[in-house]
């Protein structure tokens, strides 16, 4: 594993007596894309604000690119591209004007400014909106502008707070694709509470809740942790037209199927299978059903185990369930 670009060591932030972030420690390896996951009010934004030098920590240390966020604040800020929540901008300015202004604040040389603005605008699908006043842009376009702003100085570290909020499904897919492309060239810390986003884009996940780190590891490691705790896993729902008892018996006897739950009975039989649900099982089910002359109407997976895990450990009622999967 390469050296970490972001190092957080016992970082704490207190607002009066309230501990918003309580002695959290984690590392983000160089070139990786890490999901920072947690419910609303978990301490995600506070942690990010400390990492971006917007506010100092009450205690503990954090460094970005080897520079301390407290004592070498300007050096840290030169190395990060930051998209704050809601991406606030100057609505009276034009898109191109705003990006040029932000570029000057980042110290981009005059000669490089125009091509750089054009490049990030193109990358964030803003190429045809450069002369538009920001006030006339939709929320999605403003979000793209925020991402373009974060990429402007080509920073080694990107810190993105809810980057897909306000985007339509196509744009969300494109943004995820873009984030995947950014990994390798940039270290990305992606704050979100959308679990599927993390599963699809991130190599590592840090789950924070009530100001503490509740779990961290790769999505697979977290799923294993979930299985180890006996949390309910995903289910395979199969809808078949044919004789119910025979279908139940045939599917229940398949390798890997541990439990069969009947969701609907009649001419069409709906079953929920749980156990070791891999791709081979689905192929076997399909061939068996077709081979016996029954009609396979639907087959789908519900309730990913990571989602259950997230819900379980971030539930305020569950405090004993803290986990720390090996890094």
């Amino acid at each position, binding site marked *: 594993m390469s050296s970490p670009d972001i190092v957080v060591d016992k970082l704490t932030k207190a607002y009066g007596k309230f501990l918003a972030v309580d002695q959290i420690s984690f590392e983000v390896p160089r070139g990786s894309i890490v999901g920072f996951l947690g419910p609303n009010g978990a301490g995600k934004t506070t942690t990010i*604000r400390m990492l971006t030098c*917007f*506010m100092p920590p009450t205690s503990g240390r954090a460094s970005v690119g080897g520079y301390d966020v407290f004592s070498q604040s300007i050096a840290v800020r030169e190395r990060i591209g930051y998209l704050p929540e809601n991406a606030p901008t100057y609505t*009276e*300015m034009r898109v191109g004007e705003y990006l040029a202004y932000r570029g*000057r604040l*980042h110290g981009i040389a005059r000669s490089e400014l125009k091509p750089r603005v054009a490049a990030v605008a193109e990358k964030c699908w803003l190429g045809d909106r450069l002369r538009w006043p920001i006030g006339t842009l939709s929320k999605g376009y403003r979000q793209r502008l925020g991402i373009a702003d974060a990429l402007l100085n080509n920073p080694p570290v990107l810190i993105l707070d809810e980057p897909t909020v306000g985007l339509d499904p196509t744009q969300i897919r494109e943004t995820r694709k873009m984030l995947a492309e950014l990994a390798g060239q940039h270290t990305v810390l992606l704050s979100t509470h959308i679990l599927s986003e993390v599963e699809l884009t991130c190599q590592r996940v840090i789950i924070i809740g009530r100001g503490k780190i509740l779990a961290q590891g790769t999505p697979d490691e977290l799923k294993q942790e979930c299985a180890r705790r006996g949390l309910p896993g995903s289910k395979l729902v199969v809808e078949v037209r044919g004789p119910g008892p025979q279908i139940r018996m045939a599917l229940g006897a398949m390798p890997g199927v541990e439990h069969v739950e009947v969701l609907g009975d009649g001419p069409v039989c709906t079953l929920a299978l749980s156990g070791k649900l891999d791709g081979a099982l689905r192929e076997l089910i399909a061939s068996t059903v077709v081979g016996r002359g029954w009609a396979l109407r639907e087959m789908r997976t519900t309730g990913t185990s990571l989602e259950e895990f997230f819900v379980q450990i971030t539930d305020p009622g569950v405090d004993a369930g803290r986990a720390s999967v090996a890094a």
Partner: protein
Amino acid sequence: MVKTLSIARRELMGLFYSPIAYVVLVVYLLFVGVLFSLLVFAPGAVADPGPMFEWNHLALMFVVPFITMALFSEEYRSGRIETLRTSPVSDFSIVMGKFLGALTFYCVIIGSSLVYVLILSIFGRPDFLPVLTSYFGLVLMGMLMVSIGLFFSACTQHQVLAAISSCATLVTFGILLQAIGGLLGSVISQPPAWLNTAQRVMTYMSFEPQMQHFSMGLVDTSHVAYFLTGTFFFLMLTYLVLESRKWR
């Protein structure tokens, strides 16, 4: 320096986009126009625009808060302060950039009063040296006024509160101190030495006596020092307020 000037340019642009800026420009021109027609532009009078500049602060103390009220307040309210302060720009550059942007707009406003000097020079032959010193004095006074407005804007996220607070402070410097000093002098027939000193300090700190000298063509270093140290003081306070917000 490039970053400071970029912020200044953006602030100036922001002010020109705002309708309030044009309203205050018109109000200022109307006020100076009234001063001009009542005190300066009279048949047979000496072509001296001095009185017009001497009382300029009466309008400016209401105009400047409208220029400065949004400088920081709006950044706090909209959340843009986070974008600004996570950029590689020092707090000093942010304060100076906003100050210079607002001061430039102030200079555009007072510069618009040149139209009255032009009218006077068509009908008479005014002495241009006092006009020059008057504008110099107005710029110095503007520096202090803008820095006061900037300070109050940095204190709150409510623009109206920032405007009212800076207006109250500017009225204190513009009218109240001199009025209280004058009142004390007229009510007490044989004032003790300390009261005389207090009266002198209050008169010294008022805008009108300072501007009177500039409008007569006098550039007194004590007046220059007064405006410069006052500006420095409020800019420092603004910087400290901005720094202290980090720790809340």
